[in-house]
Every structure is written in structure tokens, then in C-alpha cells.
């Protein structure tokens, strides 16, 4: 029993320590003298890697989720004779919740795990040490551009996700199920508020982008540099990032829409 307690405390302390070093890594890589000349090409490269290459998966999943929402919303709302509210339902659920959350989850699986593996492999092949010995801080050279790219990409991806999803919903609702087009769009426009809904959704996406990239980069940087360690770190990235996104989503929703 005492042993169990001791192990619990030990694990707790280790988690706390990891959290602390993650914070230090974050601070050191972001609070650096900005050097736009060297930084910009690196950030662009990373945006290409985590953003542009994630575009297809985002567009496809956005389209399908929007279509499913349209279909489900219609079958429920048609019973109450208010099927023209499908547009409003699709748009609100996408913009407020599904776009930031699903994008963040896909991002964690697609780009986050790749980031972890890449940085972990750099550590295993001594590239990080080698940077240090050349006199370059790997936090600034490797970690910082990836963090910035994650920051920038997730809101962009979430916005595209929303838009594609809404058009997917419109396609199903208007073209296939025959909801009157005018009321579909006007209902949507009446209920969706730019700052209340769209901007809040964007803020969520920024926060998620930050958290997911932070976890991914930290897991890569902190991993045991063996093949087992890297695979372990990649799994952890996806699990921790997904859990953090879902938990944070609740907190943010409560803050933004919950009148707390």
C-alpha cells in the first residue's frame, strides 16, 4: 500500500517535471530575439509540411462531415417542419465546434505525429547535438519554426474545414433534399454572428494549434532516442494531443458560450 502510494507520488512528480521542461522548451524557443531573415524560410518550409500537405485530408473530411450533418439535421428537423433550419444547424455546429476540434484531431494524427517522429529521429541521429556543437540553439532552429507553423496552420485549416463543410451541408440539403435555398442561407446568416461564432471558432483553432504542436514538439525533443522511444513518443503525441484538445474544447466553450 505504502509502496503504491510512493509509486503514485513518484509518477506524479515525473509528470510535473515533464510539464516543467515542456514549459521551459516553449519559453526558450519562443522568447528568442526574432531573426526574421533566418526564421522566415524555415517557417515557410514547415507551413508547407504541416499545412499544405494536410489540406487534402482536411477538405475531404470537412466535406463529408458537412454532408452528414446536413442529412442528420434534415431527418430530425423535418419532423418539426423546420427543415429550413438545417443551414443554421450545420453552420453553427461546424463553425463553433466541429471545425476546430476535428481539424485539431486530424492535425494531431497527420502532422503532430510526423513532427514528433522527425524531431525524435534528429535526436537519435545526433543532429540536435550536432547543431548545438556548431553553436546553433536547436530550440530556435528546429523547434521554434515548427511551433509557429502549427500556430498559423491550424486556424487556416479550420476555416477551410468550416467552409467546405457548410458547402457540403448545402449540397445535401438544397440539391438532394430540396430545402428552399433562400431560407437555408438566410436562416444561417441570421443566426451565425461573425465575432460571436466565427472569431470564437478561430480562437479555439489557434489555441488547439498551439497545444497540439507544443505537445508534438516536446515529445519529439524529450523522447528516448531509440526506435522504441520514438514510436512511444509518437503514440503519446497523438493520445495527449487529442485528450488535451477535447478537454480544452470544453473549457473554451464554457468560457465563450456558457455565460460563465
Amino acid at each position, binding site marked *: 500500500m505504502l509502496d503504491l502510494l510512493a509509486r503514485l507520488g513518484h509518477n506524479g512528480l515525473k509528470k510535473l517535471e515533464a510539464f516543467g521542461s515542456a514549459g521551459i522548451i516553449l519559453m526558450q524557443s519562443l522568447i528568442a530575439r526574432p531573426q526574421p531573415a533566418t526564421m522566415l*524560410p524555415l517557417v515557410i*518550409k514547415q*507551413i508547407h509540411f504541416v*499545412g499544405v500537405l494536410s489540406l487534402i485530408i482536411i477538405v475531404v473530411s470537412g466535406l463529408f462531415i458537412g454532408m452528414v450533418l446536413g442529412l442528420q439535421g434534415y431527418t430530425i428537423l423535418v419532423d418539426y417542419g423546420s427543415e429550413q433550419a438545417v443551414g443554421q444547424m450545420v453552420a453553427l455546429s461546424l463553425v463553433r465546434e466541429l471545425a476546430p476540434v476535428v481539424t485539431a484531431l486530424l492535425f494531431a494524427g497527420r502532422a503532430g505525429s510526423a513532427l514528433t517522429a522527425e524531431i525524435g529521429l534528429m535526436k537519435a541521429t545526433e543532429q540536435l547535438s550536432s547543431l548545438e556543437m556548431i553553436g546553433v540553439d536547436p530550440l530556435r532552429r528546429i523547434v521554434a519554426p515548427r511551433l509557429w507553423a502549427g500556430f498559423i496552420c491550424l486556424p487556416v*485549416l479550420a476555416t477551410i474545414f468550416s*467552409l467546405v463543410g457548410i458547402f457540403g451541408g448545402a449540397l445535401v440539403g438544397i440539391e438532394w433534399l430540396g430545402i428552399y435555398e433562400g431560407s437555408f442561407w438566410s436562416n444561417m*446568416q441570421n443566426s451565425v*454572428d*461573425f465575432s460571436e461564432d*466565427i472569431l470564437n471558432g478561430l480562437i479555439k483553432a489557434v489555441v488547439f494549434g498551439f497545444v497540439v504542436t507544443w505537445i508534438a514538439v516536446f515529445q519529439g525533443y524529450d523522447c528516448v532516442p531509440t526506435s522504441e522511444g520514438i514510436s512511444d513518443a509518437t503514440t503519446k503525441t497523438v493520445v495527449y494531443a487529442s485528450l488535451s484538445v477535447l478537454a480544452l474544447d470544453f473549457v473554451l466553450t464554457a468560457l465563450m458560450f456558457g455565460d460563465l
Partner: protein
Amino acid sequence: MRIRVLEIGVGAFLLMGLVALLMLAVNVSGLNFESKGTYRVYARFENIGGLTERSKVTMSGVLIGQVTDIRLDSDALQALVEMEISKDVDFLSIDSSVSILTAGLLGEKYIGVVAGAEEEFLQDGDFFEDTQSALVLEDLIGKFLFNEVSE
């Protein structure tokens, strides 16, 4: 050359994000960029019922503005409602009346404006003098019951 392709790709990606945001703003939230600004007017109500910030302000059913602030006026002990009215609607006479209405039976509360007859118009910072509070269902039922009993 490979770098160029990469940069163009990233540029197009960011541009797509911006365009998507713009389309969301215009098509989905109906954000109107053409609005030529707003002016503020105020009204005091005995009871605002369920009126909230960002509630609509309409005239003859046409949207002309929104509620921007609600607070308690400590001197008059009444609710003070601040509204932003679109600059296009600059013909609200000073004796216009405002009332808090309900959309449908149980729908959201909004403010309805009925124009008056004066030649002088409301300016930024002016007050609606003629206000009608929200109908509160409980009061209504209470009054009805009281009348029944007293008869």
C-alpha cells in the same frame, strides 16, 4: 526552383485561408461590410424581460441595429439599454416609441421601434422618451387572476 514552388504553395495556402474566412464572414454570418457606421441611442425600461446584448433592433420588422449594452441606471432605478442604429436610418423622430417584443410565442426578445410624428430626429447619444417594457408572462397571468378574483 524547388524553393519557389514551395513558397508559392504556402502563399496559396494562406490565401485560401483568408478567402475562406472572408466567405464565411459574408456568406455564412452575413457580415455586411457596406455599413456606413452606426450611432448610439439610449432607452430606459421598467423591465427588459429577457433582452440581452446583441438583440435585434427593428423597425416595421426591418433590422436597423442591435443592443450593445444593458445596465442598471442607479439614479432612475431602471434598466438603461444602449443601442447601435445604422447611420442609414437617420430619420427616427424624437417622439418615436420603443417596446420590447417577443418573436413568436417563446422566441427571443427584440426591440421594436415605432416612428413618431415630430420633424426633429434623434442624434447620437439621445434618449427614446416613450418606452414600453417587456411583457412578462408571470405578471400577465398574475394580473389576469387578480382581475378575475376582484370581479
